[in-house]
């Protein structure tokens, strides 16, 4: 199902701007800066999983929800394996209903890293530049179309 989402997204990415596709209750949103036949340069990738698949959603007990969020974070770390840097869960907070994943510290180069935030259903991926003593800001990053397809497919398959 998500594979369909990834393929639909890939077909849509031809120009710059925010590309948004939906497929069987899942949605992918990509802010494209530049694209060619092989790769895309993006500012942000957002994947919204279907309502039924939301680990943080549902009316289950709080304990069950907390476990699901940890599981989601672990699954996302695996889903982002196509990125050039290994992603690890940094903060997982069932209380706050979300998790933050970032590039592993040993992979951070030139004060840039990937950051993914999820509430269990909506997941955002950005690349952050954090100069010393200055504010952090999102910067564009390049992915091959193949990597983008795989990320959208895996993240959306939760």
């Amino acid at each position, binding site marked *: 199902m998500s594979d369909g989402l990834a393929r639909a997204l890939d077909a849509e990415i031809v120009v710059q701007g925010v590309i948004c596709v939906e497929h069987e209750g899942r949605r992918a949103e990509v802010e494209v800066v530049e694209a060619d036949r092989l790769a895309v340069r993006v500012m942000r990738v957002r994947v919204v999983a279907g309502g039924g698949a939301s680990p943080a959603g549902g009316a289950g007990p709080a304990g069950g929800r907390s476990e699901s969020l940890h599981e989601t974070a672990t699954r996302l770390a695996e889903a982002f394996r196509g990125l050039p840097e290994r992603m690890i869960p940094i903060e997982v907070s069932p209380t706050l209903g979300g998790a933050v994943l970032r590039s592993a510290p040993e992979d951070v180069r030139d004060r840039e890293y990937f950051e993914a935030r999820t509430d269990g259903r909506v997941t955002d991926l950005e690349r952050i530049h954090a100069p010393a*003593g200055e504010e952090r800001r999102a910067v564009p990053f390049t992915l091959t179309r193949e990597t983008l397809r795989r990320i959208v497919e895996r993240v959306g398959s939760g």
Partner: protein
Amino acid sequence: MTLNIDQDVQRFRNIVKGRVRKDLKKFMSDGEMIGKQGDKYVKIPLPSINIPRLRYGKNESGGVGQGEGEGGEEMPGEGQKAGNQPGEHEVEAEVSLEELAQILGEELQLPRIEPRGKKQIAAAHDRYTGIARIGPNALRHTRRTFQASLQRQIAGGTWDPSRPMLVPTKEDMRFRSWKSKQEPQSSAAILYVMDVSGSMGKEQKEIVRLEAFWIDTWLKANYKHLEARYLIHDAAAREVDRDTFFRVKESGGTLISSAYALVERLISEHYPPEEWNLYVFQFSDGDNWSSSDTKTCMDMLRTRILPKVNLFAYGQVESEYGSGQFFQDIAKEFNGDERVAISRIPDRGAIMGSIRDFLGKGR
């Protein structure tokens, strides 16, 4: 020749102080000294001088200066092998925490803290100012005892100036006695708050530990009665002991308002502002979970915490992932407020400047 040991000790202490002064920045960013901290002293390493001495060797056994050699010829000897002799140990000297605080104050030009007017509580002090007829022998006042004995003998006509001899009786005995005096004493409490969420690493906690040591040292020199409380938080806040404070690692998200709520509760339950000088030192990487929580924090600070404290200090340490937005938010909100001190601490080298930012206000 007799050496005046006191002069030598004083000279040694001056050398030690000079070394601390010279390398203060290094000591401030180096945890080694804190690792050797006692209740009243810290140990600092001192360079030692090896005094040269003559050593006698065997003649004509080869070696440098023992005949002709060819270019590239190896020197005789064992080569690069691991040694089996004990190494030299660094000499350490003790410096009292008062001396350390004095050096810190002088080097950073820190103003003495002026306790707030009413923030004083009465403390009882015993002072030996009186004389009593009964007491333990350890407190016997010899001069007054003999005076009493002399008075008794003169009054009784038994005093013979040509044969002066005093034999004190039990009634002549005089003893030092004390009076308890209530003296006002300034009391202070420090509340250390640290973000221990997943984004705070080991190095960040080490920086906080070093900062806390120097802040403690300075405030202890300014207040006789100082209490420290340690609070940690991720999405929830709790109080811990000092050891846990510096070692605990959590992986939750950062909700700074949870810590502020605990600070407020502790103050209202234990530290009435009219009796205590209150200091809050907060350390975080500034990665608050949401901007709405940051807004809550600003409200809590302005209305519920700042009116009760002498100083609220916020130190933002920088992790591998840079530092968050909270610093800018707090700087914008409380720009020019004397009760708020903020500082960025990107690395250990910045600790000295950060201490100056925090304590330079003399509050």
